[in-house]
């Protein structure tokens, strides 16, 4: 499991409606744009659009069933999202170490030039 933050995953989860959709799908096991829109204060079209974003982030998987598409949570990707939520601190540690390295390299270059 990677410790790096997948920014597309974060962007997909940046919306409260999409997080509720994931919550509902986890509870129900399966859902369609129509069934989910009945449980949230948003239109079927809006739910379909949000499901599309979640699908691109691989958080949900579509199953074609006649005219409706049924969605289930991709549990591997969901576990990854949870893991990443927990590893945000580690990600910032790595970024701060890189900031330190770059700044100190620039500083020592400038110090040499001024000596």
């Amino acid at each position: 499991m990677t410790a790096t933050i997948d920014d597309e995953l974060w962007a997909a989860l940046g919306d409260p409606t999409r997080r509720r959709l994931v919550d509902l799908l986890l509870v129900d096991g399966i859902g369609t744009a129509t069934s989910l829109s009945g449980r949230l204060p948003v239109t079927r079209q809006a739910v379909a659009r949000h499901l599309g974003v979640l699908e691109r982030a691989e958080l949900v998987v579509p199953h074609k069933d006649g005219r409706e598409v049924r969605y289930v949570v991709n549990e591997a990707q969901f576990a990854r999202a949870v893991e990443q939520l927990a590893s945000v601190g580690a990600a910032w540690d790595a970024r701060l170490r890189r900031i330190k390295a770059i700044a100190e390299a620039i500083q020592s270059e400038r110090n040499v030039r001024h000596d």
Partner: protein
Amino acid sequence: MEFGTVEREIHIDATPDVVYEVITQPQHIAQWWGFDASVPGQLTRQRRDGSGPVVVPVDVVEADAPRRFVFRWAHPAGERATPENSFLVTFDLVPTDGGTLLRLTEAGFREIGWEAARLAAYHRDHGAGWEEHLASLAVYAAGLVRR
């Protein structure tokens, strides 16, 4: 486990001017974060599998060189960044003897309230069964429906 705020500090042997430059300039951001920040309002990077760019909205809240740099990010594209839909990152630069103390906070993990993740992490930490986890989620979902 941190779900509210990430807080870190690190000492850097460089002046606040240099550190501020590294934090805010696109050519440096590309190195420490891996994002192309040259277009205002967005961070862009190529997907590892070659299937195109990932674009993440970013909104600078405060730029007070060389003391403070604050931005919001990861809100839905086309929407204004708010405490409910984005993460707030704050860099504070404190001059020290010959260097800079860099303080970082990232807030929003509790505010955006992703209950599923919180519960799943709780489940993992406490070794509770999956069924128990689902039961907790059902209680949470019932709360949502009632609201």
